[in-house]
């Protein structure tokens, strides 16, 4: 249907965490829009897949949720990072960078 890369499970979690780190507290719709904008529409998030991912992060204790009121006075569930979530970001960022560095050496041997 379109040639934008699908968002796969592991990266979506990290994107959600990074988005929340930047935005503080945000509802599901907001997170979806942010991810879309940050990736410059490169990643087409099927918004629905976000919710199971949010639930998983919440079950793992990386984020917490509470009901609140949005800018245009709408009732919405707001998510925000927990301390465990911040640690998780650190850990995953490190892993990603490592991975990227390794891959880069393969893709561009001259740098090494």
């Amino acid at each position, binding site marked *: 249907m379109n040639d934008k890369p699908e968002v796969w499970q592991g990266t979506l979690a990290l994107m959600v965490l990074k988005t929340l780190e930047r935005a503080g507290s945000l*509802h*599901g*719709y907001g997170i979806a829009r942010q991810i879309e904008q940050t990736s410059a529409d490169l990643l087409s998030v*099927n*918004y*629905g*897949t976000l*919710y*199971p991912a949010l*639930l*998983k992060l919440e*079950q*793992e*204790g990386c984020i917490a949720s509470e009901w609140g009121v*949005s800018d*245009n006075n*709408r*009732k*919405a*569930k707001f998510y925000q990072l927990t301390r*465990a979530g911040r640690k998780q970001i650190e850990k995953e960022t490190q892993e990603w960078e490592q991975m990227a560095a390794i891959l880069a050496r393969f893709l561009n041997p001259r740098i090494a």
Partner: protein
Amino acid sequence: MRMIRAWILRIAGLFNKQRKDQELEDEIESHIQMHTEDNVRLGMTPAEARRQAMIKLGGVESTKEAYRDQRGLPWLETLWQDIRFGLRMLRKNPGFTAVTVLTLALGIGANTAIFQLLNAVRLKTLPVAKPQELVEVRIVGGNPGLGLSDGANAEMTYPLWEQVRKHREPFAGLFAWSSGELPIASRVEMRTVRCLWTSGDSFSVLGVAPVRGRLLNADDDRRGAGPGNVAISYAFWQSEFGGDDSAIGKSVTLGDRIFQIVGVTPPPFFGLEVGKQFDVALPLTTRALWWDNVLDRTDIWWLRVMGRLKPDATLTQAAEFVKTISASAIEATLPVGYAAGAVATYRKFRLSAFSAGTGVSKLRADYERSLWLLLGITGLVLTIACVNLANLTLARASARSREIAVRLAIGASRSRLIRQLLSESLLLAGLGAVAGAFLARFLGQSIVWFLSTQKDPLAIDLDADWRVLAFTSTVAILTCVFFGLTPAIRSSRIPPAAALSAGGRGMAGNRERFALQRGLTILQMAVSLVLLSGALLLVRSFWNLTTMHPGFRQDGVFVTYVNFTPLKIPMERCDAFKSEVLEQIRSIPQVESAALTTHVPVIGGSWTLGVHVTGAQGEKDGASKVTWISPGYFQTMEIPILAGCDISKMDTATSLKVALVNETFVRQWLGGADPIGARVRTSAEPGYPEATHEIIGVVNDTKYGKLQSEIPPITFVPASQLSNAGTFATVVVRSSAPLPGIIRAVRQRVSQVSPSIHIDTVVLRTRIREGLARERLLAWLSGFFGVLAVVLVVVGLYGLISYTTLLRRNELGIRLVLGAQRSNILWLVLRQGLNLAVLGVVIGLIGAVALTRFLSSLLFDLQPTDPLTLLVTSLLLVAIASLACWVPARRASRVHPMEALRYE
């Protein structure tokens, strides 16, 4: 940590679903509304805006579905769903459910019951600390019959034990023990208690701690110390003292000696012999109080020696070590007063160490083989039952093919469908296993009760342990897979379109579809033939044993054991006293005859002496059983005298020494020549000096040891010609009056002589029958399971033929319309079943010939491939099978053609 937290939350997600669903609904709704508003701001119409928002979300329902899967544990939820659905299906078919659960309960119950027994006598370790460290020290191959053996635990002599305990390098501790019975003083009745004689360290080495007071120690076990302290078992404490603490310090009179109770052993400790429960534990050396010199005699075998390995020692090391001390221990304990040949035999004995973690057991030696056999039998019965259930499930699955087709058509995956059908079977198997476990307890106890006799009750711990649980659940899962998996796979394989359009017709004539059922029925037939022929063999063998003539007449005889030790009669007056007791018994009017004997055939132990026989044809050396009797013995036992004459009162200690021998003796040691006048010289043993007897008569052969054993040569010598005869007397009494009354009269008469004489009576026929407990158990159980197998097979065959006939109704109707005779139809259906039966019987015969040879050691006077048995079983099975097919065949032939054609 995070994983655990997530799992807990997911399990929590299984509950309170309604509120959580509402929350999700709200969250999605707010998401769509926000998106819609944004879209409207971009210039869309409200309807289009909402539509686009929902597209972008990717479907409300599928989002919720994915969310719910993440929230809970989907497989757990579907499992729960399957179980609830299964339960609903089972409730809708109460007949099917009842039949299945009952069949499985019987099958699993029988298997578990036998396994429980096997577990108890074979696999369970002793209830002591670290039982795997226990080893036994004994003669390699056992004592072949040298000297005197007392009781079931006659593996070692006391002097030999004293040698062994000098060296203990690989052992953390060594101890010796023995078992036996003693009369206990009680005003109400005369009875005996089961005793456990233990050397001083026994309890500390075993790691058995008292529940009250203290247990015995080295101080209690001193040579020549006289009666002292005893410990009692928990069971005895409960039954005798009601579990009262005041029992400690009480005195108890055992065998006319007074002991003090010092402590109680814990409830699980039954002793060291599986199947027996001891009452009182006494110091080992106190055995000498009732048996002079037993601690010094190198020829009295009466105890077992066990030890605990040091934690770092292995059984192999221990065995090696024991072998190194063996020669010197044997050399230091040579038997005294024996002929040179016997001493040479003793010198060849070697000691070694054997694993003893599961204790010792006569029961195990007697029954292990039979129990494995029974487990095999019950396993086969369960297989037959499973085949029936598989056929039933297959039939039910084809009735449900429409339902299954619909499920497949609307998108159920095959694996999901198999899972659902299988969980129904699992449910049935589970219910069957639970019911079976209850049944097993009852069955197991019945078998224990069946094998117990009044004199010798079995104490078997049938409590389920992990082995029994593992066994039962494995059996349950196997049965479930067996009867549930194939039907599930098959029914999920039918293309939905075919099943939907066929609507039940057209499948009927499909031969391939029933190939599996036919094959299973043939298998069933074959297995049941094996079971039935095995059962018939065991039943006939038991019948042979009970109806055989042992050479004497069993009926109307009882044995009276008289113990007059308490009277302290001087040695030289003992014989006269015995005669007096015998005369008293003879003077009772209903007593037809009575006699003294040292050994009662079949039930009364064994005594062998070396003999040197001098006959007309030369001299021979051999061995013979020897029994000392008083005149009237042959008359009492009704053993015919074939030649020569009986002994009489004229045969005294000072007259010519005489003897009678049995036919086997004449054949074996006299080459069949005329035995009268031949001489038998017995070799010397302590208390039995060498003596030469002249043979004056020959008696009919009689069984001596077990009924199953060959008849040995037997020599009968007048009791008056043996000077050492002790303070025991065995009197055989014959009467044609009802025995209970006579027994009472005899007891009364003997107690008139002196009230302190101990007396015990046994009815000969009863005791001989009790000796056949194993054979009776095997005959009964195998017979029962054989019949059960046949019933199951008949039901299965009947079901299969009825079912296929029902499906062929249409075709049969057409045949009738086209002019087929009713007899044609009858034969058509009947032949279908008979083909299966005959094929099954042929395969079964091959199986029976191959398998029944495992029975040969359990059969008496019967070949395992006895042609008559196989023929009878085959004919019986074919006959029963035809009957099972005849009913549906007849029904089919009676059907009205129009009715059959209309049936659609």
